[in-house]
């Protein structure tokens, strides 16, 4: 939290994207989170990814619920649309907005409390609907706004700041999402932008529900010895299984990858993801393999990170619902509301 606003002055040599914007143009209001909060790093990664993808800020919709994490949508892309919803109800708002206008880019930011406790049901159904959005969980294992109680994602044995030990099993959003059929499931760490930024860029271009669970240490209530969500613990125990490099449409794959070490996935818009696997047997397109690997590592006290599962076959909400290609606000009123006769005909068809 800072009382002085970040000066508008910028480095004169900052690179510009295809729109002629620098990453400073993608910033939002001053963060009021604690100094050193992992969430602020994720905000910076979102800014970086939006800039790198040359997204026009006004085509982005920022959505959130309640909690420290949900405040962060105010801290990036001040030129975007935003909706700060009721606790745990962000997926409903996202569904409504997305149904009305499918052409916008939806970025939802939630936390482990907002998603895995009060909003667990909404979260699951957004996945089932394959809502075309990026869903970021800023996962710190505690309720920061209410002074650091364990959240539903806290690991067994993790110690709170005052010494209590958590004994309830955690809900792992990554495993949950894979079992629910999510098509883009990733895990990352707020302190590793080299991993997080390309994941965000790919997630924004993925057609369908893209979940990124980001371990985001709470410096105030969960960054101590014995915590499994501290900066030090996350660095020591995370193992990257699949690194995703994002390659925008029509640009060359610049890096030479050794044979067999890389696998290319082409997304709907023609951009590609180059997957670099640490273990050649790991197949991110197979949900069973992903779940096995995650659970194996979990038993060894490790956290698997990277793009853990990607599938391209699932139909998104608009394909499932056979909705028109045009956003509702661009459809002529007469077609959108065809009048009483048309309504009577529809009702007749159900008799």
């Amino acid at each position, binding site marked *: *939290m*800072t*009382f*002085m606003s*970040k*000066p*508008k*002055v*910028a*480095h*004169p*040599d*900052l690179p510009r994207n295809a729109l002629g914007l620098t990453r*400073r143009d993608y910033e939002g209001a001053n963060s009021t989170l*604690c*100094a*050193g*909060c*992992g969430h*602020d*790093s994720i*905000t*910076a990664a979102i800014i970086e990814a939006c800039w790198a993808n040359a997204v026009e800020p006004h085509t982005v919709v920022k959505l959130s619920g309640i909690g420290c994490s949900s405040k962060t949508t105010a801290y990036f892309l001040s030129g975007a649309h935003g909706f700060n919803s009721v606790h745990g109800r962000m997926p409903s708002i996202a569904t409504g907005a997305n149904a009305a206008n499918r052409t916008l880019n939806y970025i939802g930011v939630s936390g482990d409390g907002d998603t895995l406790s009060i909003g667990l049901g909404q979260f699951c159904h957004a996945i089932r609907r394959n809502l075309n959005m990026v869903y970021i969980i800023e996962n710190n294992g505690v309720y920061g706004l209410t002074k650091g109680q364990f959240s539903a994602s806290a690991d067994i044995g993790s110690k709170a700041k005052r010494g209590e030990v958590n004994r309830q099993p955690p809900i792992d959003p990554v495993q949950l999402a894979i079992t629910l059929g999510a098509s883009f499931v990733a895990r990352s760490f*707020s*302190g590793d*932008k080299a991993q997080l930024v390309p994941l965000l860029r790919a997630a924004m271009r993925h057609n369908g529900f893209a979940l990124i669970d980001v371990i985001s*240490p709470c*410096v105030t209530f969960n*960054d101590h010895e014995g915590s499994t969500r501290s*900066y*030090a613990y996350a*660095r*020591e125990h995370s193992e990257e299984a699949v690194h995703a490099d994002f390659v925008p449409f029509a640009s060359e794959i610049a890096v030479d990858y050794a044979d067999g070490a890389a696998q290319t996935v082409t997304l709907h818009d023609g951009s590609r993801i180059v997957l670099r696997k640490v273990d050649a047997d790991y197949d991110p397109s197979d949900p069973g393999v992903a779940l096995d690997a995650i659970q194996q590592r979990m038993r060894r006290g490790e956290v698997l990170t990277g793009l853990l599962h990607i599938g391209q076959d699932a139909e998104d909400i608009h394909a499932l619902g056979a909705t028109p290609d045009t956003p509702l606000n661009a459809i002529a009123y007469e077609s959108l509301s065809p009048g009483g006769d048309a309504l009577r005909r529809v009702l007749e068809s159900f008799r």
Partner: protein
Amino acid sequence: MPETKAGLRAAPPAAMQATDTADPRYYHRVVDCQWACPTHTDVPEYIRLIAQGRFADAYLLNRASNVFPGILGRVCDRPCEPACRRGRVEDKPVAICRLKRVAADLKGTGIADRLPKAPARLNGKRIACIGAGPASLTVANDLAPLGYAVTIFERHGAPGGLMRTNIPSFRLPQSVLDEEIGVILDLGVSLKLGAPIDSLSRLLAEGRFDAIFVGSGAPKGKDLPLPGRQAANVHIGIDWLESVAFGHTGSIGERVLIIGVGNTAMDCCRTSMRLGAKSVKVMARKPRSFFKASDWELEDAEEERVEIVVNHAPTAFVLDAGRVVGMRFNRMEYDLDGTRIVAERVVDEVTIPCDEVILAIGQENAFPWIERDAGVEFDRWDRPVVDPLTFQSTRPDVFFGGDAAQGPKNIIWAVEHGHQAALSIHAYLSGLAPADRPREAVRLSSRKMGLHEWAYKNDYAPLERRLMPHVSLKERFKKISIEVELGFTPEQAAQEAQRCLNCDVQTVFEAPQCIECDACIDICPVDCLTIATNGSEAEVRARLRAPALDPSQPLFVSAPLKQTGRIMVKDENLCLHCGLCAERCPTAAWDMQKSTLHWPHADYGSSTCHSHERKTA
């Protein structure tokens, strides 16, 4: 901890060493203005004092380094301003020089008891200073309070050297000169006016002095030996300015040509405009980018309708009845490769009519009065051999400083030469080796007062550089002594002071505290921080968050960080010193600490050193 990941990640062989911030030069260099200033004036501190309305404190802080704040606040060459970080962050540097003048203008009258004083007792050692210019006056300023009896010999009827003879009074009023020189003379310094020294051997033979300081300047203007040069209406610039300064010359012809385009040329052309010239042309041999004159002096001359003519190389004076009536020039064309001339051609020849010509093409020092067997060695260009650090000549009791030592530079360099020569003279007469210099030191003290509270104003003020108000063009030519620049008002000074970035409030980093949360990197408005894997400097510079492409600006490199073994790298180039990195740091690995430089003078280690008595700003 070899079992951790950090321990496994060994630094590559070409890795950079952690920056040694204990070396006083590191933090000194970050304060660009202070580093560029020959006398290392504590610029950010005096600007803060001005911002607080503490003008007398600002004046005295200035005086401790540059001795002549009122004079230099008007006519300094300002090496600080091109160096100023604000000029890289935005377009225009802080008006450092003009703020110095504000401190002098508004200091009030109550500072007499805070100025250096004549000592109660003399130490019995006597020093002669030759020439009463800024170098000699600085030697007197530093040595008189220590008990030395200083005598200054001046050939003219008034002290000041080139500050009086070459700088016209519309830029530097006599009253300012008299006041600041008077403070030094009041230390019990004996000033002999109209007393040229015409033999060093004789002065030495008399045995009246224990050491001699030569501060006789560079009084010989360069001549232009072209056909027709003997005409009476061709003048050497510095001699002509001198005769104007002493009232011997009071008029000039209507059409004047000035040959040369340095700062002397600017003073000559503007003086001509005040002595009755109707048309003044400054003739330059090369294009504008090669001009030696400071930009602001060129601007001021052009504001006064002086015409500056480029690419004209003089070839001959055109005479009629023994008087110059014009000058012939070759019109030149140049091929440039970047800033270098690779080829030149004469396009054609022109004659420009004129009534008077002033040559302002440079000056040099000259020592016809030093016998070559007096023990002072001269090099093959007939310049005295002077140690660049101690300013001692090959004769241990003779020292040089200012333009006399190293050829024409400027006032602020002369002052620093004076400080260093005084230190050497004090060492020499105390039986110590002048080459053993006391080292500079930097003291750091935290500016943290509380959560989000700093003992300096860290908010970036998006203000443009204030313009210096001038006397109207109609008024200023009425008398040569009308000072053109009016000085900032207190309100303008207060606004200009807010533009200073406080570069002396350093970002001090403690690697062991860092948890690599990236908070500082994310908040830095100018992207000067990166946590990077180590590598060679050239390679790391290219992959920082914003590439650090100016190798003259240092990188700060931390020790390896404990979680990943990476390093914190800071490109000092554009840092705003806003302190947001320190505000955002959860572990106080970053702190904002004010650095204070102690640059030793002759009073080093003695009780007459005043610098500790003032509360910092």
